[in-house]
């Protein structure tokens, strides 16, 4: 499913890289530990987290993730947005908690 469709379906706010929402999302990874994402997320995953530090962009770039979705109304730091635009990594935001977002994404994409 296109990231753009997910943005529409879940009413997500696009914080960075508005022009990069056409990628096909096949998986989602939910974690607030960057080292865990480095170890376990898969290429192309959409990453759900509440961390807004600029390092999330570096982690997403290194793992070639499709985007980062901040839950619980968390706002990314300005530096994070700047880096995300530079790296063309979409940053999305939602007021929903991770459990609800994960459930909705699971229903949209279907679990494995």
């Amino acid at each position, binding site marked *: 499913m296109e990231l753009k469709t997910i943005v529409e379906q879940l009413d997500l706010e696009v914080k960075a890289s508005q022009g990069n929402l056409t990628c096909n999302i096949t998986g989602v990874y939910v974690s607030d530990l960057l*080292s865990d994402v480095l170890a376990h997320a898969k290429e192309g995953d959409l990453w759900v987290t509440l961390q807004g*530090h600029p390092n999330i962009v570096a982690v997403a770039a290194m793992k070639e993730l499709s985007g980062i979705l901040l839950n619980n109304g968390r706002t990314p*730091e300005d530096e994070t947005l700047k880096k995300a635009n530079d790296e063309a990594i979409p940053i999305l935001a939602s007021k929903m908690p991770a459990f609800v977002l994960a459930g909705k994404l699971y229903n949209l994409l279907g679990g494995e």
Partner: protein
Amino acid sequence: MRLINADLHIHTCLSPCAELEMSPMGIVKGAIGKGIDMIAICDHNSAENTRAVIEAAEQTGLTVLPGMEVTSKEEVHILSIFSLPEDAARMQELVYNNLEGVNDESAFGMQVIVEADGTVTGCNDRLLIGATDMSLEHIVRAIHMHHGLAIAAHIDRPGFGILGQLGFIPNDLDLDALEISARISIEDATTSYSEYSAYPIVRSSDAHFLDAIGSGMTPLMVGAASFTEFQMALRGEQGRYICYEG
């Protein structure tokens, strides 16, 4: 006794997220220019540039302490500050043994190892931005075993601070101090973190580029700019103390 300024959290070009301008000479000149008497070099999970900065500060009035900013498995940053480079090196060996992964320069940045005069001797290829698999308790214990001071880094920041990651400071965690960033004053911090008043508070720049050096400083009333005097000031021993009034 005299009043000195300490900035005990400065990165060098070894940290992937720091600017390459953070060379030993650049840092020493920058610190002296800001009226700082004592600094600590705390790169992410490595102390490989500490000796170079110590050497660069020889013949100047600046005291340089070797240190490291260690990342726990909870992704909490803990400053470890030592008196002797040998102790920092032993702590580094423990950190390296517990740190997996290889750096990706394009994603995280370069990790440049330099000599005192700025000559590049190589690049560290470990994933220094990564987390060790050591718990907070393990790290604090190890720092003390190597005669260092363990300070919870930038507790006021949402990312990688102990309060942001855990939400609280465990009762049995034997920290020597809490560090706040340049974002808040020591006075505001003593109010905001009054429940943790048992811990002394230090303020540092966490400088990743030259202009940031000294943006956060801790004024200390001490006999000299040294590790031992700083330790005494943290404990309020023999008339040494942190000058919260600035």
